[in-house]
């Protein structure tokens, strides 16, 4: 083979692809090379000089293995006296000006410098000169800085410029006085900045909310899935004695790589603030704690004399498949009403999954050669989709948006902000028509909320459908048709058929009925979305949820459920991939796992649902849903024959789906950290937003 090279690592022969580094070759034979600046998802800097190895033939000096390409016939020695001496030297230099304040450093226990100093450091210092002290930076409410600890590996800088798209973060000064930070003194505003904390190999950048709260060896680690957006980022929930201490990303190359948006990482303090911990009943306008027995009794009495058609149910965006499956069956089989909807208002989609998910898997997005965004803001709706789009945009392919003009951190062509442009695309008068036509793998992303959840959403989908056909966005080899949802619950609701199946009322109709005071009982299940505001009007409102937010305000009866960290759950993401998250901590006080609530309630109301355990419940779900048989995988999804309707389009502009990234669901709204971020990004505009 011509595109491989064979070399020796510590005497062992290894064959790697041409262009691989020496470090890659070493990894292949399980020879680990210490390093600080190297990171597989960032560009090569080669500046820490910790990964030096001896290479023959070559100059008689050690070589940086992260940067040097492996070549045929190389003889690499990673533990020769030359290599070890070089690393010991580097370590001494790194420690010379490092404060060695490990006992008061949050990185302690998971610090690369600490670990490697054990291998290559000395037990005493030869540096008797004055140590450097560096002024700390104010990087906002999320990142705490102790810049004296910085070892100048520039991982944070490379992440900021390459992944997050923040150009104003970098290094200034020379020699000993190099300083990392924002060029102009100001807070770092990025929805991804938290990842710098993970990237920092020392304690220079640490988590501000987590500061001095725990040591890594005290933490219990639970793998789970983030639900603050619908990307399905893999996370670890680190808890200590039943309390969540922090959330960090877990690696998944197909989804979040190893990043996590700030909302997922820092919102955990919102889990227990404004929290509903007991069933409550409203007496004379005031909520009082009651027991579950009392709550069930109240509900049973209330429902006894009411006709099912006078009852309706709406669900929010932070639910797992199990939650919605049990809610749906509870409403339809126990309450016997068809007035139920878990989708965004005006969304008429149902049926085949291809019609409401992203058909292009996240790890294949990079193959696209033209992109059109319609009424969506991936930067805030799905930040880690945006990082992939950013990579794509850097290839200089045609990239256009229709909708509000946005800063996506990379340059795009803004076509128009109204649906008129869609018609122009079709009749060829849009400047993007030709480019889209030329593309082999065109990618179109349509925002479920901004583009489709409007009164004429069905007609817009009809236009999109035409575009998909005309521009051959779906071919046997490529499916570039994508609907972007911001919340996992809205996708799960479509999967679990949480919508009227017969003549029942959907969201918009339920809202109309409410405004006419025609409903007797309304079940509000979670209230993550602004669309679920203004639900006043039912004679009796039951709120099943976790937080004292808009839904609880209206409720006459509140049933406390659990958050995503408190239950085992199947979470579906934008690609339609179902992933299992595990329970990290118990729900507080009387709060229960959601499915148990509906199951218990069904028995109380005399029509017991046919599952007694999560296992049974899950087997029921996977019997009917293909995607739920293959947890963690992407399944082939059918495309619906017909998606939208042909009708009159209103020429209103698409509205930015997320006006405030840090306040877009009940957990985020309860979080103090997120409030600080909100205040930082909107200093003059502090008002409730979604």
């Amino acid at each position, binding site marked *: 083979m011509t595109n491989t090279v064979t070399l020796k690592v510590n005497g062992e022969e290894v064959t790697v692809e041409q262009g691989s580094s020496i470090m890659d070759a070493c990894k292949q034979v399980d020879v680990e090379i210490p390093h600080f600046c190297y990171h597989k998802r960032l560009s*090569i*800097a*080669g*500046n*820490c*000089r*910790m990964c*030096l190895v001896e290479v023959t033939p070559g*100059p*008689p*000096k*050690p070589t*940086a293995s992260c*940067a*040097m*390409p492996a070549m045929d016939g190389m003889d690499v020695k990673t533990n020769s006296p030359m290599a070890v*001496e*070089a690393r010991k*030297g*580097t370590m*001494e*230099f*790194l420690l*010379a*000006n490092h404060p060695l304040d490990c006992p008061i450093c949050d990185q302690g226990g998971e610090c690369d410098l600490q670990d490697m100093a054990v291998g290559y450091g000395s037990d005493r210092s*030869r*540096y008797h*000169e*004055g140590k450097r002290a560096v002024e700390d930076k104010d990087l906002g409410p999320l990142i705490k800085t102790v810049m004296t600890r910085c*070892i*100048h590996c520039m991982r944070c800088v490379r992440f900021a410029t390459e992944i997050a798209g923040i150009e104003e973060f*970098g*290094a200034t*000064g*020379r*020699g*000993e*006085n*190099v300083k990392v930070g924002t060029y102009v003194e100001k807070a770092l505003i990025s929805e991804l900045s938290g990842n710098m904390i993970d990237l920092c190999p020392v304690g220079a950048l640490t988590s501000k909310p987590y500061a001095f709260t725990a040591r890594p060896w005290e933490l219990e680690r639970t793998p789970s899935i983030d639900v603050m957006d619908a990307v399905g980022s893999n996370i670890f929930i680190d808890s200590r004695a039943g309390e969540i201490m922090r959330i960090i990303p877990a690696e998944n190359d197909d989804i979040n790589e190893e990043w996590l948006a700030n909302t997922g990482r820092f919102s955990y303090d919102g889990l227990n603030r404004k929290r509903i911990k007991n069933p409550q009943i409203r007496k004379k306008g005031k909520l009082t704690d009651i027991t579950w027995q009392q709550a069930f009794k109240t509900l049973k009495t209330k429902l006894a004399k009411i006709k099912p058609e006078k009852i309706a149910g709406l669900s929010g965006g932070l639910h797992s498949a199990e939650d919605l499956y049990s809610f749906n069956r509870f409403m339809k089989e126990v309450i016997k009403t068809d007035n139920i909807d878990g989708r965004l208002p005006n969304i008429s989609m149902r049926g085949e999954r291809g019609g409401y998910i992203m058909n292009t898997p996240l790890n294949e997005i990079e193959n696209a050669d033209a992109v059109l965004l319609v009424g969506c803001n991936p930067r805030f709706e799905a930040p880690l989709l945006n990082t992939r789009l950013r990579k794509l945009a850097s290839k200089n392919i045609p990239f256009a948006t229709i909708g509000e003009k946005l800063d996506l951190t990379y340059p795009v062509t803004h076509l128009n902000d109204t649906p008129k442009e869609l018609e122009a695309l079709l009749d060829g008068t849009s400047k993007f028509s030709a480019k889209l036509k030329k593309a082999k793998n065109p990618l179109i992303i349509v925002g479920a909320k901004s583009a489709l959840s409007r009164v004429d959403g069905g007609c817009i989908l009809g236009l999109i459908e035409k575009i998909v056909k005309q521009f051959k966005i779906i071919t046997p080899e490529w499916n570039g048709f994508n609907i972007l949802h911001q919340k996992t619950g809205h996708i799960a609701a479509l999967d679990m058929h949480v919508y009227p199946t017969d003549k029942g009322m959907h969201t918009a109709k339920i809202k109309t009925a409410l405004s006419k005071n025609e409903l007797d009982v309304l079940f509000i299940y979670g209230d993550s979305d602004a669309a679920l505001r203004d639900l006043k009007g039912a004679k009796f409102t039951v709120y099943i949820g976790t937080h004292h937010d808009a839904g609880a305000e209206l409720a006459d009866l509140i049933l406390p459920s659990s958050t995503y960290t408190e239950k085992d759950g199947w979470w579906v993401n934008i690609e339609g991939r179902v992933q299992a998250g595990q329970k990290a901590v118990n729900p507080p006080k009387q709060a229960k796992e959601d499915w148990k609530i509906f199951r218990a309630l069904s028995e109380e109301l005399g029509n017991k649902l046919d599952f007694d355990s999560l296992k049974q419940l899950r087997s029921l779900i996977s019997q009917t849903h293909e995607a739920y048989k293959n947890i963690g995988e992407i399944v082939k999804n059918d495309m619906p024959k017909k998606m939208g309707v042909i009708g009159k389009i209103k020429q209103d502009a698409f509205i930015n789906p997320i006006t405030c990234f840090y306040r877009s669901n009940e957990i985020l709204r309860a979080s103090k950290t997120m409030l600080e971020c909100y205040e930082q990004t909107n200093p003059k505009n502090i008002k409730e937003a979604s």
Partner: protein
Amino acid sequence: MKKTPVLKIEDKVFKNLDGKGDWGIKGYKERGGYKGLKKLLTTEPTKHIEKLKDSMLRGRGGAGFPTGLKWSFMPPADAKRPSYLVCNADEGEPGTCKDRDILRYDPHTLVEGLIVGCYTIGAKASYIYVRGEYYDESSRLNQAIEQAYADGLLGKNILGTGVDVDIYVHLGAGAYICGEETALLESLEGKKGQPRVKPPFPAGYGLYGCPTTINNVETIAQVPPILKNKLDWWKRWGRDNNHGTKIFSVSGSVNKPGNFEAPMSIPLKELIEDYAGGVIGGWDNLQAIIPGGSSTPMLNPAQAETMLMDFDALREEGTGLGTAAVVVMNNDVDLIAVMTRISKFYAHESCGQCTPCREGVGWVYKLMKRLGEGEGTQDEIDMLLGITKQIEGKTICAFADGAMWPVQGTMKHFRHLFEERIKKNKTKKSKVA
């Protein structure tokens, strides 16, 4: 021993290095400049490269890399990726001032060199990166370029040969490290001037990711005369592998400091006595000589006595020709103070990118300072030498090597000065106690 002849005007490349004649295009042409340029631009570029290889012209910027070989690394012209010739005029090595005189007194030698160079390597554009402090010199250079444009020697279709060359002058901002070729490219691209990790080398991935050759001012200016004359005109000077003429910047304790164009391999003593008017106080008053700019280790008087000034002779003695900036120090000079100052310079100019240099060069300076003041122990002198070895060869670029060599050179010949000072300080202290 046969004396090296002093160069006559027709032997020189830089005929107006003393600045006495007209620096402009008229004067340059009167001195024979631009004559035969058309012929050079119609000869096969490969022939030029062969001749340069044969001439053994070695880079005048300090490293002494064979220029013909360097130019032969350039890939053939590609419509998508243009080639560039970048001229390094970021002359910052302490002691060196030769490019400055070329820029202000004979700028057309460089312009002509760039025209020929661009043609030879297949570039249509050339950038001259001029040291920020050389503001006046860059203005002069710009005037020379304007004159050349006006004369049809730059721009499209030069002298009707179909060759296009444009030259752009960029003024740096005062960082020594931007003289390192890849840091220079970064700076030229508008980024922080920090050396790149190599490979890839500039010939494959240079300015804006395109094939690029970077040469020193003097090197480029020497190309046209070499190509115009017979090979022997150049090769009669100097020893094998070290041919031609070279500008030596002689400074320090000499009676007549200045820039002198002299044959390669000239004995150091002749250079100082015949060209620079001799050491102040006579040759016997000599303490040490830095032969090639501040990064080259110094020579003691015994070595200086017989030293030949070329790349190979100096390398054999563990030092280097560097930029051929000869700094002479007689016995009046506080040698440790000089070397400490040089260390301070390097600590100040380290770009701070990679660990050993960022943390180590400053440490070395602080140690030099402390030990030079007699504070410290004998062990720390060994440690200082150990640290220089710990830095040398471990960094991204050659800056740290250049910063360590002078310290190592001091240790080699003048370690006793540190020891004496420490001893003296100790006795003084014990007396006080």
